[in-house]
């Protein structure tokens, strides 16, 4: 489990992390969402031991990450600007990773050779940005990490490779119980892979929920009331209501069963539950459309 308690990290007085508290359960795929400058990359750098927080604790499995080589050996990290040595090929970097990470698996490295169409002897600097990202995944996944920290991981990858990469990551989660913390400024991208989501803004966690919690707490319904009911009855606490012809679209803070029971009092002609997007959930969880969440999550 990854635990961050009241973490503060300041740069020249500016708080990039401003008292963040966040928990990533073991085996979870945790999506960290936020706009540029929210503190996502800073948080990940605190987690992989690059930055030291000014205040608060950054622990994995109860141990602080800072200057903890044994723990860091179990962390695989792919920053958005992955570094490689100027003259190095993927093969050269593999030798370094193999020497440094005790869990590095040559078997896995060989196996992943088919997944990533890269010439391992070619200098990485001569590869395209997407291919460099693939090389980063290839090497990191070969380290068999227990914790995977990914910062904008699929930026620059084509759709096929995105799917391939996510598939690899999720296989690891399923087979080895890998804990994944993935940051993105795009909520839609994380929708399909994350089981936990946290929103960061201005160095603070605005919201942190499991997908299950989110879906249990909010429902989106399309309702057709009897002809004499033209407006949504005042007894229905709709977070959002819109109308197209006779069809009312309502978003309510309750689960589907409670919502249907409530609407039944008004004898609706039709009640149909519609899946909520993460974006919609966050908008209304964070206080409705007036809150500038669109700026944060889109």
């Amino acid at each position: 489990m990854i635990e961050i308690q009241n973490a503060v990290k300041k740069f020249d007085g500016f708080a990039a992390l401003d008292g963040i508290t966040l928990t990533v359960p073991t085996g979870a795929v945790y999506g960290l969402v936020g706009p540029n400058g929210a503190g996502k990359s800073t948080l990940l750098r605190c987690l992989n031991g690059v930055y030291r927080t000014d205040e608060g604790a950054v622990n994995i499995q109860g141990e602080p990450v800072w200057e903890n080589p044994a723990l860091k050996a179990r962390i695989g990290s792919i920053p958005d600007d992955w570094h490689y040595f100027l003259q190095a090929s993927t093969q050269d970097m593999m030798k370094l990773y193999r020497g440094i990470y005790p869990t590095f698996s040559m078997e896995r490295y060989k196996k992943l050779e088919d997944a990533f169409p890269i010439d391992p002897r070619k200098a990485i600097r001569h590869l395209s940005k997407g291919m460099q990202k693939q090389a980063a995944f290839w090497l990191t996944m070969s380290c068999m990490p227990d914790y995977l920290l990914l910062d904008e991981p699929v930026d620059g990858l084509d759709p096929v490779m995105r799917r391939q990469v996510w598939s690899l990551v999720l296989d690891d989660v399923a087979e080895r119980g890998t804990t994944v913390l993935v940051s993105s400024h795009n909520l839609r991208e994380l929708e399909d892979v994350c089981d936990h989501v946290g929103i960061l803004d201005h160095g603070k966690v605005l919201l942190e929920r499991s997908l299950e919690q989110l879906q249990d707490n909010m429902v989106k319904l399309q309702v057709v009331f009897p002809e004499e009911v033209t407006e949504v009855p005042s007894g229905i606490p709709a977070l959002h209501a819109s109308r197209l012809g006779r069809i009312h679209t309502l978003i309510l803070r309750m689960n589907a069963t409670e919502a249907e029971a409530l609407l039944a009092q008004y004898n609706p002609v039709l009640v149909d539950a519609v899946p909520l997007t993460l974006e919609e959930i966050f908008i209304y969880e964070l206080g409705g459309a007036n809150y500038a969440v669109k700026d944060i999550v889109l």
Partner: protein
Amino acid sequence: MQSKTLSSKGLFSPALFRNDLVRFWPLWALYLVMWLLMVPAFQFLELFGQNGWGNATDMQAYAMSGVASMATGAALVMSVGFGCLFAMTLFSYFTGTRAVGFVHALPTRREGLFLTHYLAGAAVFIGTHAITALLTALIWSTAGLGELWVIGLWFLYTTGQMLFFYSFAVLCAALAGQMLAIPVFYGVFNCLVYGMTNLIWLLCQLLLYGWTNPDDPALVVWLTPINKLAQLSWNRWGYSRGSEEYWRFLQNGLGTVGVYALVGVVMTVVALLIYRRRHSESAGDTVAMSWAKPVFRYGVGVCAALSLGQLLYIILWDAFGQTEQSPVALVICMAGLGLVGYFAAEMLLQKSFHILKRSWKGGAVLVAVLILVCVALELDIPGVERRVPTAEEIQSLEFRLYGQDSIYGDSEDPEMIERFLTLHQMLVEERPKDNDWDEDALYGSIGLDYTLKSGAHLHRHYSFTILPSEIEAHAALAEQLTELARDPEVWQAYMKERFEPGRLVTVDMYLDSENRTLTFEGDTAREILAALEKDIEAGHTGAYIFDSKGWSANTYSTNLSFYYRAQEDAGNGNYYNSSYSEDVQFSKDYTYLLAALEKAGVDTERLSTYQNYYDEDYNEYVKEASYQNTYAEESQETPIPDTLTPEGDAAIIGGADGPTAVYVG
């Protein structure tokens, strides 16, 4: 096993170590090749080349001094250059955000990362030196040479110096957040103490009356490592190659290298401590440590004020042809350039040109401090100008009187010291100006270096050009100056180590009016020297040193050169003969000397003074005389004797263009 333990604790990474050795091989190879060429390859070519050695002793001596010479000069240059390159290469990741993120995310402690990279560099240079030494030893052994300890000496010298400069550069890398800042810090820190000391002294020279720079204090020399280590190379030339003293000097020099090597180890520890506290996010900053930023900001400001500010002042003041210093102009120049330096440093730190709003207060503080320092010096708050030591404080005095001629020497005689103290006190009180030169002015300079009984030194230098209109105001001072310049004891102090009758060989006198040199030997020469001493005792000397007009009217344009023999240590237990000479200018007042010259056959009536010499008519006369003399000698075809004739005879030495010397026995 050991490395495994260290590795498991994250204190050393064998993989990173190997990576360093492999990645940067061109630099390591260059270092190795340069040393292989300079030592074993050179030795091989010398020992087995075409030279053909006469005997084994010569060959051994040549080989030894060849290797030893590489231990100082070449090793210093290599260490200064490659020490910095090694550190920049191995610790370049400090300066890149991506690189530092990658390296610090690796499962190795900061100490481990530092030690791994540091040891990679150290392993390379120690390995290079070991290979070089072994190959050289092999070549020597093949050539049948012994004394392999000299190769060991080279190894210790080279490794010690490289250890110091490499560690120094690593410390700079730990402080710098930008790649280019590493060599800049390295270069500046290497010369900082020496440079700042001299700039402060320059400020004292400009603002403190009588200030003169002392010799570089030992601490300044030690804190300027390139200078101190270069002295090992320069001073080596003071000893004959291969002499016992030469080897003793080099062996003693090992102590200096050892001290610097130890300092290098301390610097490494300091660099490690800095690195542990250094934040990864400082990559890209000019200065990585927050505590060092004010030091950088104000340090650059002060350096700019002292260097560029004073330079601007000197250029401007010189351009305006001013002779008197202007403290106000100096402060303006220093404050202006100090601010430029301060704000430039601030821009580098903030990475922005818009820094004025945030940093003007610091700039104001800097200007205030600069003004305060200049005012304090101008008002002589430290009491430097007023300080005249008491006779009881003084152990000895070195004096220099400069004017038309120069007299210098040293003395421990309390009475003579007292006379100079009186002069010193008068100079401090009267502060004569150093006006533009005027031929009727009393002008010159006085240098006084006191060695105090406390062991301290006090150096003063006063230049003056007292115009006729000011003479009255400085009558007592002028009298004291002239008295000292004529003082027989002062002259004897000047003469005591320079004019040695026992070693006198000849006295030469060039007659410009006749374009020939007279050479006096034996008793004649000794009589001339004795006559000079009598003139000194009689106070005939030095009357016109500060009086340019009197000098010109009374001093002869020719001078006497006293030649002495000396013996030099050849370094191999033998001595060889050498000679040195001292020149003396004399005036019409030197009655004893003139009489001695007359006795030696010189027509002193024909000697010309400087005033005559620069007189146009006289020059015409000299030209004519010289021409006639040459023509007459050539036409008579006078035979030139090979050796000196008995006493009383003369010998003329000359070439195709006429006689150039006449020997008078």
